[in-house]
């Protein structure tokens, strides 16, 4: 049995699964004992899933295609602003559009920006691409910060509705929501728990769909060409592939997934501001991807989870007052040290792609492509 055999797990993978299981059990105990509010736990799950989306989006660009995109925050922000500007009551433009339609507003903006940023930068050398994309992302942030007649500027956008607010049944629930079985009340839930639950359902569907979609395209001939480009762009060129077109496609797909994360974020937190477009957001997502394992979507998910653990965990740690350091510097310090140690000790990440790179046919007994 080779270590790459489909269906078996390496000791490291088992370890990661065990650790996540233990953490989940701990959180469950915290909720049952009343230490953690259920709505907050659900919010954390939603946030983790959002970072998973961002990491998977970056993974398409950096993990599959080798493009160093430092403008993650800009695409995330355009998704968030796109939907917020169309739906929010506080929107300076119009507002009041149904979130299901506004979703496409966010995605459309991101797609346009992806082409605008991608076209000039994707031909650049690796490190130039990093600097140029970070610079262009800053242009987007400066624009949103200063064009307050369209974006509400530094004040940010408030009054964003919940994603399901105008849905027939889900939007009309009255609270506390009581679910009866034969006249006996079974559930009795507050608004915050119901809305958080709906958010989790929504994001789970999105993450699952994106994951399956990415697995499919990664194993397809398209994914194989992209991997060839990552390894040796000249070779791909020699084989007659239009490498620029492939990179552009990967760039747009990745950016759309990031924008999707932004759309979800808008309807989760119900507030967006230029603060969300700071370069730090981009670097968080980079940490998630290189920690999880570049090129691995399962790794990207693990990385997304870790980021939320750092963000929210530092708040708990410093709330106890036992540490001589504030939450913000502690978070920055942990992320910084994490970056340094991953590159030093485990540059391939915790869950590097193994089975992802093998398509089922070649293993025998797999389904047909």
């Amino acid at each position, binding site marked *: 049995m080779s270590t790459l055999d489909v269906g078996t797990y390496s000791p490291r993978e088992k370890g990661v699964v065990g650790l996540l299981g233990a953490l989940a059990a701990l959180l469950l105990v915290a909720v049952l004992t009343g230490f953690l509010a259920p709505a907050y736990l659900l919010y954390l799950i939603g946030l983790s899933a959002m970072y998973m989306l961002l990491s998977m989006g970056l993974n398409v660009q950096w993990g599959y295609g080798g493009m160093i995109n430092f403008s993650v925050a800009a695409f995330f922000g355009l998704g968030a602003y796109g939907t917020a500007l169309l739906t929010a009551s506080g929107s300076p433009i119009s507002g009041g559009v149904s979130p299901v339609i506004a979703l496409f507003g966010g995605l459309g903006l991101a797609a346009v920006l992806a082409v605008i940023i991608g076209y000039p930068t994707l031909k650049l050398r690796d*490190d130039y691409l990093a600097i140029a994309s970070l610079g262009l992302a800053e242009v987007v942030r400066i624009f949103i910060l200063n064009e307050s007649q369209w974006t509400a500027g530094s004040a940010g956008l408030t009054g964003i509705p919940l994603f399901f607010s105008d849905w027939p049944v889900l939007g009309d629930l009255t609270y506390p929501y009581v679910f009866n079985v034969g006249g006996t009340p079974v559930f009795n839930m507050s608004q915050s728990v119901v809305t958080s639950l709906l958010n989790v359902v929504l994001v789970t569907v999105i993450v699952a769909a994106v994951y399956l979609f990415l697995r499919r395209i990664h194993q397809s001939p398209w994914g194989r060409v992209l991997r060839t480009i990552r390894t040796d762009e000249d070779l791909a060129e020699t084989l007659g592939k239009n490498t620029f077109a492939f990179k552009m496609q990967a760039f747009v797909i990745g950016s759309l997934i990031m924008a999707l994360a932004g759309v979800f974020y808008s309807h989760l937190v119900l507030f967006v501001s230029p603060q969300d477009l700071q370069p730090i957001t981009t670097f968080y997502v980079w940490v998630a991807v290189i920690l999880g394992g570049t090129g691995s979507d399962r790794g990207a998910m693990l990385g997304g989870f870790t980021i939320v653990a750092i963000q929210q965990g530092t708040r708990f740690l410093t709330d106890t007052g036992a540490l001589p350091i504030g939450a913000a510097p502690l978070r920055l310090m942990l992320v*910084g040290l994490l970056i340094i140690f991953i590159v030093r000790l485990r540059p391939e990440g915790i869950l590097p792609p193994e089975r992802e790179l093998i398509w089922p046919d070649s293993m025998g007994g797999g389904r047909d492509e």
Partner: protein
Amino acid sequence: MAQILQYLANGLVFSSIIILGSIGLSLVYSIADFANFAHGDTMTLGAYGAFVAFGVFGGLGGTVLGLPIGFFLSLAVGMALAAVVAVLTHILVYKPLDTDSIGLLITSIGVAFVYRAVLQATFGTDFLQYDISRSGPIPVLLDTLNVAVTQRDVAIIVSAAVLVAGLHLLLQRTTLGRKMRATADNPDLARVSGIRTDRVILVMWVVGSALAAAGGVFLALYSQLDPRIGFNILLVVFAAVILGGIGSVYGAMLGGLLIGMLHELTPLLSDVGLPVSNAYAPAVAFVIMVAVLLVRPRGIAGDMT
């Protein structure tokens, strides 16, 4: 006309700061071969180092260029601190790494965060200022040219010029400078020619970080001090380095001068009818950077070392 002169004067001050930042970034880029994202936070580190030192030396009497002598001592302390930290970082973090230039780039982001976290934890995020009273514009210049330039502005320009001239002499007139130029030009060839490139790289970190720190100190003197000043200006510095051409110290100086000027000349755009406010000055620099990368990836100065 006086308006344009005023913009140019402001540009000269800002350029001095950008030039000091871009020299070090360019040196690291050419010798250590990676885009150092911790360079901006090295500038911040120097500025805080000088801030603490000024608390000690600030009382020293006498003034040079309208600034207390204690300020220049504190400047030296800030430069020394940044140099020591950069050398330690090189030895502890970068040198043991077995990775490519992208791995180094990502690591330098981690280093930047650690620097900033330490500063933020120690000093908080509030704005600070060197305790030096501000004087008004120099009367002569205001009367004759109608340009408002303070003594502080002049001090920044002159100090930067002295530091840059010192670097020029180091590079052109000393053996060490020749070794640095050789290593920047072709590290492998320099090594086989018997140059101890390890030592040259250490010197490069010392020189680059010390100049960055000076840039940070002047930036804090020009505006205010907070843990983000260096990172906020990093991309503008990158724009200058790329404009000048990676790996060319003199190109970096030229790029710094141009980007600094363009940054402060942004208001001219609205004077000619383009509605671009001052807030877009960095954005203008980034767009120029991308344009240069597209048209002339080696920068305007090419490979001139």
